[in-house]
């Protein structure tokens, strides 16, 4: 993701983001492994299945924390606007995809990918937003 700035709040954000992403990269194959080899069922299967979603949602909380900690109001504005771009982009892609699925039967979009779409739009919007302010 394009660097917003290099102040302490942004550095903390990158550190937390990377740490949580590494955690996700560890939890995801581990969960898959458990389901493939041990086929958990019943009440235990539900929290286990949700486990990889925790760091994914954590990334959103980390971005929120960055916005709360960022003292530079311009950077905070760009951060908020990029989040809006992420939300807008995600809603657009998923809505359009949904209609395409319904009417022309394209491949089903797994809801797991919505958060990835959000981060892609958020990340891509930052350099565009920064360029607008130059």
């Amino acid at each position, binding site marked *: 993701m394009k660097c917003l700035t290099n102040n302490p709040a942004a550095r903390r954000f990158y550190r937390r983001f990377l740490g949580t992403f590494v955690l996700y990269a560890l939890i995801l194959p581990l969960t898959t492994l458990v389901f493939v080899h041990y086929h958990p069922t019943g009440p235990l299967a539900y929290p286990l299945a949700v486990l990889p979603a925790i760091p994914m949602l954590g990334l959103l909380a980390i971005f929120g924390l960055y916005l709360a900690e960022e003292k530079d109001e311009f*950077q905070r*504005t760009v951060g908020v606007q990029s989040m809006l771009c992420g939300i807008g982009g995600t809603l657009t892609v998923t809505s359009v995809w949904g209609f395409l699925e319904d009417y022309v039967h394209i491949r089903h979009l797994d809801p797991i990918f919505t958060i990835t779409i959000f981060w892609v739009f958020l990340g891509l919007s930052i350099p565009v937003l920064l360029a607008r302010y*130059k």
Partner: protein
Amino acid sequence: MKNRLRVLRAEREWSQADLAQRLEVSRQSVNAIETGKFDPSLPLAFKLARLFETTIEAIFSEETDSEFSGRTVANDKLA
């Protein structure tokens, strides 16, 4: 909103990075304010006024560029 940050900065021979350091913001922020694409909050406007030892009105205005950029801090103090 028009502003005289570039002029005030030039009078002190400060770069955008120098001003950003004094304001504890990023250079991108100073550039965005200077080009009039981002309006600072009231606390940041006060911080700028204190830094340049002038008033907020002497830095920011809704006047046109030509009317505004010719003014100096010295003239504002006399007025």
